[in-house]
């Protein structure tokens, strides 16, 4: 296999290198790629969409159709992880910890669960007390990360970033919660159902905004059809993009959490990193 791999690599590499012979220079301002479509975008994007970040303008408007499917891909990934790993079976083995004394009970093959309350807590198999310092720091950091994530989502028009990046950061803030405390905390705080609904609803926001344009008499995704819904018709496209980005953000954040939770707990949603 190694030799075969080497041969394939050499062949493909040779082919690719052969193709580079005819490339324009790196960074050549006059290369076809930098002049044909790119000029149209750069010169007209702001005028047409009122969005200074051309990348966002293209992403959410000119090629918004791509981005819609990109969001669908993300949704699909979340769903796939859920579908593949989610395991609804209860574990037979359970571990409980008596909080005041710190004694750990190992219950094998129990039908009835111990009542989890003030005295007992349900813990993982390889449980360790969560680290005080990490916990405290993360506790403080998480809201900041989240507000930052939301900021990123909302400012997709002006700065790099946008729905996807913001969503990922928001998702990682949730992951951070799970890492610094315990997976159970995350699952308890944000129910699986909520995550699932958010993932679908986020994409639905996108597709919905895009689809509403059709009964309004314009083509799919043509935000200018939404004029009657917004108070600032001049910025209608920018606002449309904002709405879309929010949808993306919701979906991505939820999906990231779903994927993490499912991978780290093998789909049981009980114990994790």
């Amino acid at each position, binding site marked *: 296999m190694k030799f075969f791999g080497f041969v394939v690599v050499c062949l493909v590499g040779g082919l690719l290198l052969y193709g580079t012979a005819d490339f324009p220079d790196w960074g050549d301002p006059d290369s076809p790629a930098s002049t044909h479509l790119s000029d149209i975008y750069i010169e007209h994007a702001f005028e047409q969409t009122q969005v200074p970040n051309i990348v966002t303008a293209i992403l959410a408007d000119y090629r918004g159709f791509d981005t819609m499917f990109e969001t669908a891909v993300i949704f699909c990934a979340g769903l796939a992880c859920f579908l593949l790993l989610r395991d609804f079976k209860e574990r037979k083995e359970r571990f409980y910890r008596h*909080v005041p004394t*710190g004694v750990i009970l190992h219950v094998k093959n129990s039908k009835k669960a111990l009542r989890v309350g003030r005295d007992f*807590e349900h813990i993982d198999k390889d449980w360790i*007390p*969560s*680290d*005080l*310092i990490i*916990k*405290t*720091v993360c*506790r*403080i950091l*998480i*809201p*900041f990360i*989240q*507000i*930052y994530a*939301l*900021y990123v989502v*909302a*400012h997709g028009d*002006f700065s790099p970033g946008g729905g996807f990046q913001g969503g990922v950061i928001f998702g990682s803030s949730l992951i951070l919660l799970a890492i610094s*405390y*315990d997976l*159970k*905390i995350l699952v*308890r*705080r944000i129910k699986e159902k909520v995550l699932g609904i958010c993932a679908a609803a986020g994409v639905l926001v996108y597709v919905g905004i895009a689809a509403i344009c059709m009964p309004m008499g314009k083509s799919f995704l043509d935000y200018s059809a939404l004029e009657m819904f917004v108070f600032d018709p001049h910025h209608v496209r920018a*606002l449309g993009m904002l709405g879309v980005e929010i949808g993306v953000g919701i979906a991505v954040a939820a999906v990231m959490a779903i994927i993490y939770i499912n991978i780290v707990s093998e789909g049981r949603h009980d114990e994790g990193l």
Partner: protein
Amino acid sequence: MTVSTRSPGQNSCKQTSGYLKSFFPFLITFFIMFLSWIVLSGKFEPLLLWLGGISSFFVSYYFYDLIFPDFKLKYFTVFFRFVRYIPWILFEILKANFHLLYIAFHPRLKEIIDPQIVIFKTNLKSDIAITTLANSITLTPGTITVSANSDGVFKVHALDRQTAEALPGVMLEKVAKIFGEKI
């Protein structure tokens, strides 16, 4: 060994009962968040401000108990004392940094270092105080907190004897003072 058993989830359960008790942390979190938003955003368009408001509300509504699991008015004073603590610690860090630089560039590096682990106990009780102290220790070059628990027991890895002997030192006093705890 017992460890902190509080978890934010449980706290939120308890605290929703007391309306005021949850309202204040919420409000303050909201303001902090909104302030952060403004700093981050740097734009004062009404739409963005509205969005900021909504975002801050969202974050603070769902996660207010993360920053302030148990809200006390004392925190205001703590905050100001903490601000005064910062320059001092920065200076300390700077000072020690040069020490570390010296070690790093020393040609016979292995001879001058003598890593060891120091364990000491403090009477700090609150999480935040312990964390502050632990992080301050870590930030001060030459020493890294290996672990700290809610009983105030610190385990510190020191790079050489000199730094090891200086522990916990003045820093503990300062931190204890900030959070109004006994040493």
